[in-house]
């Protein structure tokens, strides 16, 4: 079984690696060394070439093996290979970072899982704001990568939080109002956070992703440790954010939850539009007045 797993990993990697270098690399050889020894430009190309298209994520042949839980050694191996392929060019072979990317030492598995599972990593252009999107890897590969960086120095940071999304939404709302709506908006639609940063809309995130972001603070978001938001409060918060996925809008169409901006537009376009239309119907124009005089 172990052999099968290693072989499967190799098959998944083989086409991409073959694409980058003419000589196919054997499964046992360390791809890390290959990429690391290549020039930085090559490494960049390799990284971007190998970034799979979101629509068709490359599948390692481990789908029937549920992620990292199967066997520590094999997971580490898959993780190491994925890291060498997709991460090493910016974060470096020892996870200490390079000129193109920050160190991952002490970053925490919450950060790794969040960045990978929300599609923010791997990134095309270093040091730009990571954009959320479909993840580039299937869950098993993400688990393997997270396990790998977790054991190689990132593990001292915040771990992936456990959330029980059955928390008290009234408590959760109060926490949200005090800590989150300042940037993410009253109903989590997202907003600008200043200096080019965007606080993203929350309904695109899963419960675990919301909890991870709270714990490690991506980008300019503050990090809230367990003293700031207790695990129980985090459950409540996540439960409340969950309710924002299905806005109630008892008043009708919410104009995309745009607040007074959308309301003002509607007042002009619909309110004034309809009344002016009626005025035009019952009143006359200058041309009509002139005609009636002739």
């Amino acid at each position: 079984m172990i052999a099968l797993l290693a072989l499967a990993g190799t098959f998944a990697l083989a086409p991409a690696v073959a694409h980058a270098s003419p000589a196919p690399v054997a499964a046992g050889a360390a791809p890390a060394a290959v990429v690391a020894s290549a020039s930085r430009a090559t490494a960049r190309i390799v990284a971007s070439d190998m970034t799979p298209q979101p629509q068709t994520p490359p599948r390692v042949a481990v789908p029937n093996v549920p992620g990292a839980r199967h066997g520590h050694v094999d997971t580490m191996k898959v993780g190491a290979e994925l890291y060498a392929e997709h991460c090493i060019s910016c974060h470096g072979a020892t996870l200490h970072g390079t000129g193109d990317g920050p160190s991952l030492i002490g970053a925490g598995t919450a950060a790794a899982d969040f960045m990978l599972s929300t599609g923010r990593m791997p990134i095309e252009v270093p040091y730009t704001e990571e954009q959320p999107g479909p993840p580039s890897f299937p869950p098993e590969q993400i688990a393997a990568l997270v396990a790998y960086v977790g054991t190689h120095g990132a593990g001292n940071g915040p771990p992936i939080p456990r959330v029980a999304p059955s928390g008290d939404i009234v408590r959760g709302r109060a926490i949200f109002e005090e800590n989150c709506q300042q940037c993410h908006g009253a109903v989590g639609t997202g907003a600008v956070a200043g200096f080019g940063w965007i606080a993203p809309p929350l309904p695109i995130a899963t419960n675990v992703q919301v909890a991870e972001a709270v714990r490690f603070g991506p980008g300019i978001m503050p990090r809230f440790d367990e003293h700031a938001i207790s695990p129980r409060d985090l459950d409540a918060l996540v439960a409340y954010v969950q309710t924002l996925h299905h806005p109630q809008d008892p008043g009708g169409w919410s104009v995309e939850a745009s607040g007074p901006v959308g309301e003002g537009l509607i007042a002009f376009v619909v309110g004034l539009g309809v009344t002016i239309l009626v005025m035009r119907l019952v009143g006359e124009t200058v041309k009509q007045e002139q005609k009636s005089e002739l």
Partner: protein
Amino acid sequence: MIRRLVRALDDRLGAAPFLRHALHKAFPDHWSFMLGEVAAYCFIFILLSGTYLTFFFHPSLQQTVYHGAGVPSLDGRVVSDAYASVLDLSFQTQAGLLIRQAHHWCANLFAAAIIVHMSRVFFTGAFRKPREINWFVGLTLLLLVMADGFSGYSLPDDALSGAGLRIAYSIAIGIPFIGDWIASLIFGGRFPSPAFEGRLYALHILFIPLALAGLITVHVMILWHQKHTQFPTPGKRENNVRGSPLWPTYAVRSTALMMATFGVLLLLGGLVEINPIWNYGPYDPWTVASPAQPDWYVGWLDGSLRLGPRWAIYFPHHAISTLFWPAVVLPLTFFAILYAWPWIERRLQRDDRYHELLQFPWQNPLRTSFGVAALTFAGILLAAGSDDVQARLLSVPVQSLAWVYRIALWTVPWICAAIAWRICIELQARHAYKDEHPERLVLVRSAQGGYEEGPRLSTE
């Protein structure tokens, strides 16, 4: 039936001569003269819907525990009585949400109708002698509607409007020398004092509506006395008034417009959500959400604050805050110029005559250019009030966008004014050509080979 009613009134009040005169009063046929009527019907609607809301609203900041099926995420939360009563009237009262939303839509339409009406009055020169007083009254009405709208949407004590009140308080205390007194008069102490809800309520439902009702009466009585202006089309002179009689023609038209106004407000109230305070949450002085904008008629002031310079001036025992320039000096100057415009124009164009006939905008390039510049200026301020929303849509840093607006504010109005001026001059030239070549003569050849004069065609 009308006749019988008039006779009955005449028997008792001797009102027949007045009514006969009134029912035959000529109203202009041009559609744009009805813009002001939409504002008047908005006032009626806002009074009626507002009265219904007062039955259920509690203007109190007493803390209470909210229990209601309307908002599960607030069930059991300690909120103010005002906030809880607005939630209850929205979710527990018959037609409460419909009326509340229609009331709020009405405020938005009210201000919009006034501004479009004033634009019509301005660009056609209807404010000229002898109608300057009604221009002043109209501008005051606009300011009162803005104040009433602001005090109204601040009443529910929700997080969004609370942030707006905090800004208003900061502006008030930022006024040099008298700011503290003004702020404590309106807010009843340091913000957020428990007194301001009651004061705001008194302003919103008593003082400002009374002032509005009084000034609207003055506005209409002056209009009635001075009669309407009219466009300089054939048959209209400085000393006549042409149009349709109030009864029956104009009354039917105007009723149709009233029904349309009420109809669109109730439809919006029923179908489109406005000011969802259950989303904004109760107000706590330490919370604020983003994006946060005021209603559009206050939005230009928010824009002015966002673009304003950081000029704080410190004296030994006093300071002039940064808010003073964008939130006090700029709007006061802007409105002072608008109030003074009839006088400015009289002086600049040395025109002291009476005017019963209007001008088309192209006939007065100076006025049209100024009006375009003023509207552009206010429009840029309004747009800057939602710069954060636009920055997100355009994926640009909000600070860069603010600088674009800062530069645009002092340049684009000049450009627009120049373009308006040019268009006016071109239109004048075209009309001058038409005046020189009034008609084309058409010769018609008869079957016998002779020529006869045919119909005369205009140059258009």
